[in-house]
């Protein structure tokens, strides 16, 4: 899944060791301004999409996209999430509704340009979501209605072929791993989406352009994967996840572009330089931690809070190592099919057994993980999904696990000091600190 580091809303800022991190943040800030200019000021056709949809289609057609998760993080970073949760309650939605999915809808329902980021979103050409959970079609359907637009849902079909070691084969044997019928369904849906976009925008889809873009994405994600391999084997860990995430995710929003490929290469080079010089995220690394779940966007400083005191370094989150198995694809002369294989299980492999626990247990071993912290959002079945079985797999592999009940965009039940203390106590209780 794609997400993005947002600026601090509450909690504490994270420390930055890499020069490229500031470059990525600056690029994203400028991109946000350009996106606003294109979409709001100049009225270009655009789409609102979920993170696990084929962004590549829009990139090929040069149609701007606003990703729901990015927009949620943006709203959260503007410290507006509490206000919009109140808006949802006033409209009659219970307080335990899925918050990660619905902040954008809430912003639209509030209909208050003075408060809304960018003055609120204009009418998009289309809204696109894969039906990975049961709430998303209702949220996007109502959002489309409120915006006077159209919702283009995509199926998230059942997956019967189960390979726990999918990540070892997904690059080349993707048709077997992800099932031919599931890939064919997504290709058919993508062709329908392309027709809709061509009809509505007048812009044309060029499969040769997609082929080129897919090759560039392979190059980009190859750099990220190379850096992820180095981070897993290096002692000490050269880069905390607080910097892994933006340097992976920001280019991934722009995947395949010249900037994204160049930035991934620069990030890889900086990681390698730090590995070569023995530089570590912490001076006294003693405990290597794994983070499972979306980023805590409202408190990025959380991840580095125990580095100095305990030498506890978060060395792993899903975003960076995901680049290899879930993004890189041998095209085999069929870029649409290869793209479908990338998208059609993007969420499933992170939230369902055997794929989730199979991969994460393998990653824990690869990266020499000492302990794991799992985020358990209380009101989101999808985000919770698979975490208990994964925790049991990790514990069976000798990795102690702490589950934290908290939400990635709602800071209401998050206290920086209390959460840091909880992790410290857990590490002490398990004899690691």
């Amino acid at each position, binding site marked *: 899944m794609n997400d993005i580091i947002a600026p601090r809303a509450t909690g504490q800022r994270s420390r930055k060791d890499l020069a490229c991190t500031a470059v990525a943040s600056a690029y994203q800030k400028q991109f946000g301004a350009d996106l606003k200019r294109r979409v709001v000021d100049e009225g270009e056709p655009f789409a609102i999409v979920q993170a696990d949809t084929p962004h590549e289609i829009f990139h090929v057609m040069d149609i701007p996209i606003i990703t729901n998760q990015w927009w949620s993080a943006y709203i959260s970073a503007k410290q507006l999430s509490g206000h919009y949760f109140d808006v949802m309650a006033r409209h009659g*939605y219970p307080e335990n509704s899925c918050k990660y999915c619905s902040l954008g809808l809430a912003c639209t329902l509030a209909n208050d340009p003075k408060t809304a980021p960018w003055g609120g979103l204009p009418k998009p050409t289309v809204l696109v979501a894969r039906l990975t959970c049961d709430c998303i079609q209702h949220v996007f359907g109502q959002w489309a209605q409120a915006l006077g637009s159209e919702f283009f849902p995509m199926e998230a079909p059942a997956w019967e072929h189960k390979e726990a070691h999918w990540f070892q084969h997904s690059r080349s044997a993707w048709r077997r791993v992800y099932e031919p019928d599931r890939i064919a369904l997504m290709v*058919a849906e993508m062709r329908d989406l392309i027709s809709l976009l061509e009809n509505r925008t007048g812009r044309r889809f060029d499969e040769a352009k997609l082929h080129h873009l897919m090759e560039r994405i392979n190059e980009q994600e190859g750099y990220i994967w190379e850096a992820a391999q180095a981070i897993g084997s290096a002692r000490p860990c050269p880069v905390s996840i607080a910097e892994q995430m933006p340097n992976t995710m920001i280019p991934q929003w722009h995947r395949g572009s010249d900037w994204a490929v160049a930035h991934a290469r620069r990030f890889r080079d900086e990681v390698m330089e730090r590995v070569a010089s023995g530089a570590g995220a912490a001076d006294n690394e003693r405990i290597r931690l794994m983070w499972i779940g979306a980023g805590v966007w409202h408190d990025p400083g959380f991840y580095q809070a125990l580095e100095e005191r305990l030498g506890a370094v978060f060395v792993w989150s899903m975003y960076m190592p995901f680049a290899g198995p879930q993004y890189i694809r041998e095209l085999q002369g069929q870029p649409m099919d290869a793209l479908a294989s990338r998208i059609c299980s993007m969420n499933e492999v992170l939230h*369902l057994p055997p794929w989730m626990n199979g991969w994460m247990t393998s990653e824990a071993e690869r990266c020499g993980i000492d302990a794991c912290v799992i985020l*358990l959002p209380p009101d989101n*079945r999808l985000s919770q999904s698979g975490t208990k*079985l994964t925790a049991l797999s990790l514990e069976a592999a000798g990795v102690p696990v702490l589950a934290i009940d908290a939400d990635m965009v709602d800071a209401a039940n998050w206290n920086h000091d209390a959460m840091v203390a909880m992790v410290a106590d857990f590490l002490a209780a398990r004899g690691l600190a």
Partner: protein
Amino acid sequence: MIAYVGPDLPQDVLTATGACSGPVGWNVDRPFPAADRWLESKFPLWTRSILQDWSDGALDGLDAVLFSRGDDAAQRLYYYICELRQRGEIAGPEPMIFDTATIQRASSVAHMGKAIRRLAERLGIDDDALEQGIVATNALRLAAPQVCGDAPLCLLGGTPPPDARIHAMIEAAGWRAAGPTLAQSWQNPSDLRVEEGSGDPCAAIARQLHEAAQGSRAFRDHADALSAQARQVRASAVLLWFAEEDEARIWHLPAQRDALADANIPTLILTRRDWRANDGVAEDITKFLKELKA
């Protein structure tokens, strides 16, 4: 013997097996020590009960259980059970999943047609048997249940409850109750008939199943559907009861509330409720209905 879990399954195929025992049952009024180790907090209690029974061997008499992709909790339970069986934590019947596809698009209908064909082949059902299953299920479709009696009627909407306990609360207040329990909602083959003698029974079932989808992933106007149902059963009141774990139907609460207000139908809205209905819901219902009757 085969049983099933979830909505929008091909009842015609299940009927054709001649060996379908209906929905897997549950008992939500007990502890679930094993299931609680494996399922996260947002899983509804019926999933916990099923997994506990699976773990306890209570479902060992079944050969297979068919799960629906048409419900998020049901489909996730399928993957969890497959994993737990693979790990040797549980045994029990073979889990299978049916790929319900509800999007209003030809590719979804075709995909579901393939899923029906795969299921029929796996269950050893040929086209002749499927045609017989269609005829038998169509006969059930003609016999829609009626709620008889003279007392005023209260329609129960929102999350289908675990059993008839909320219906009983309504009846205890001197009203008749309408609206399906969860198991009844899964069993309902819908009023829409499957085309008989089409030459391609799998495609015919797929078309019907796609058009008549009723689960929480169905694409339809849920507010209009509730209003129409209230009119059809001549409801004098509506109870909208939503369980804490409901993450789909709940999104239509504001529109349903407004639609019922427009229709001048008194409505009691209860959200984030315990599935066991042991959280004061009986008192809320009694107060609401007795005041209305007075």
